[in-house]
């Protein structure tokens, strides 16, 4: 167990490799109750949401969700989030470590703006349990009458799972099919236990932070604190497509428009090591022998067996196929720039 953003959380229950493989091949279960949940309601909830995040929640159909970011006025990322359109407004789910910063930002915008919106921090009372993997739908199907067949990716519906009221969302951070179940903390243990016992014959395993990290890294997903922080703007992090300038005014728009115009100074790239060294967060990246960039995340990929990493490079030197070196304990090791993601799950109808 480790201390993580004020919570005690397991790095692994058995082994990171085993848990990782279980998510890719069967179904893994994550307790993500540490995440923050901010609820917006009232006549101007949508207008407020459109102003606070860089994406356009106005494009969300009922029950639909979108990946987004809250940026500061200078375009730096405060947090990356998922915005869910729910029955009575919008739910912004944020990282535990950024709970206070996100709440402070939303409260500040509400106080200074002129929005008729009610902001409720529901983090303390909301649990989040996430079954992820190719067998997640089968597992959930045994415990709910909700129509999962029509619940598409990045959509949510309210429903009962093992007798517990949940928001059932088809979202996740693993690159596999899966669900995130939001419920009352008072029902969390019961829901967890029902999933564990019902999933036993499907090969379900509980999974910790270690496999959560290797799974998202393989899937090319950024982690706030590694790829994203207050000094990074969305265009540098390969997330320009999330920013919707055409929606009108929002926090950070002017700064981001400038970056979009000139192009970002640095770019996030994927790396595959050519020898058996593992690149890790903070290791320098050399281009033509001189230090040019920095590794943001790295590991041995359990699925691919390759040593993979993400790194920032000067925009001019970021190019798929480009050769670089990573300094590991003061020695350079060759690596190649590759397209992200490293792993994509097989399509269900693939032969």
């Amino acid at each position, binding site marked *: 167990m480790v201390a993580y953003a004020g919570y005690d959380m397991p*790095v692994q229950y058995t082994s*990171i*490799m085993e848990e990782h493989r279980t998510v890719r091949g069967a179904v893994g279960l994550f307790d993500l109750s540490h995440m923050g949940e901010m609820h917006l309601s009232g006549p101007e909830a949508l207008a407020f949401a459109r102003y606070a995040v860089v994406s356009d929640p106005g494009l969300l159909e009922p029950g639909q969700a979108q990946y987004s970011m809250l940026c500061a006025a200078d375009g730096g990322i405060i947090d990356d989030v998922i915005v869910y359109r729910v029955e009575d407004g919008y739910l912004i789910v944020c990282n535990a470590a950024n709970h206070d910063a996100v709440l402070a930002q939303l409260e500040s915008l509400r106080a200074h703006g002129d929005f008729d919106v009610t902001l409720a921090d529901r983090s303390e009372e909301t649990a989040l349990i996430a079954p992820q993997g190719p067998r997640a739908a089968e597992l959930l199907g045994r415990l709910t009458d909700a129509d999962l067949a029509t619940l598409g990716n990045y959509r949510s519906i309210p429903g009962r799972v093992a007798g517990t009221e949940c928001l059932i969302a088809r979202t996740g951070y693993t690159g596999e099919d899966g669900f995130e179940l939001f419920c009352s903390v008072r029902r969390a243990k019961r829901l967890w236990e029902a999933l564990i016992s019902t999933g036993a014959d499907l090969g379900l395993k509980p999974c910790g932070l270690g496999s959560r*990290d290797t799974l998202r890294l393989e899937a090319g997903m950024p982690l706030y604190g590694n790829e994203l922080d207050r000094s990074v703007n969305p265009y540098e992090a390969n997330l320009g497509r999330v920013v919707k300038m055409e929606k009108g005014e929002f926090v950070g728009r002017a700064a981001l428009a400038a970056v979009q115009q000139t192009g970002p100074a640095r770019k996030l790239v994927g790396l595959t090591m050519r020898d058996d060294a*593992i690149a890790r967060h903070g290791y320098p990246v050399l281009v033509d022998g001189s230090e040019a960039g920095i590794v943001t995340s790295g590991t*041995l990929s359990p699925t691919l067996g390759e040593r993979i990493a993400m790194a920032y490079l000067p925009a001019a030197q970021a190019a798929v196929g480009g050769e670089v070196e990573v300094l590991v*304990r003061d020695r350079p090791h060759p690596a190649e720039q590759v397209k992200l993601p490293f792993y994509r799950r097989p399509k269900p109808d693939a032969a």
Partner: protein
Amino acid sequence: MSTTLPDDRRYSREHEWVRIEGSMAVIGITSFAADELGDIVYVELPELGATLAQFSSFGVVESVKAVSDLFAPVSGDVAEVNEELRGSPELLNTDPFGAGWIAKVTLSDAAEMEQLLDAAAYAELTAG
């Protein structure tokens, strides 16, 4: 997870073990260390001929998640390294006291063994 500690060797507080084999000292990490690390995916072995100083770092072991230093339990010159670990670092998880040995050094000062723990003392150190 192995809970039986071989008593034919001494242990360091950094979770390495050392066993005398003729004129050589065989070095490895304990099952406690391996369990703490989790799945070991890479070992950086010392160079042949390198001089190790007791309690100084002589190599690195990497798990999926993290990088850890290896600390020499005794001083000596590296005479042999376990080449098996290059292709099969997981030996440190499956057989840390046997097939997962890391290096053999020519012991430079036998008295250093006195500074290490016996099996009982190490068991106490690592108990709950």
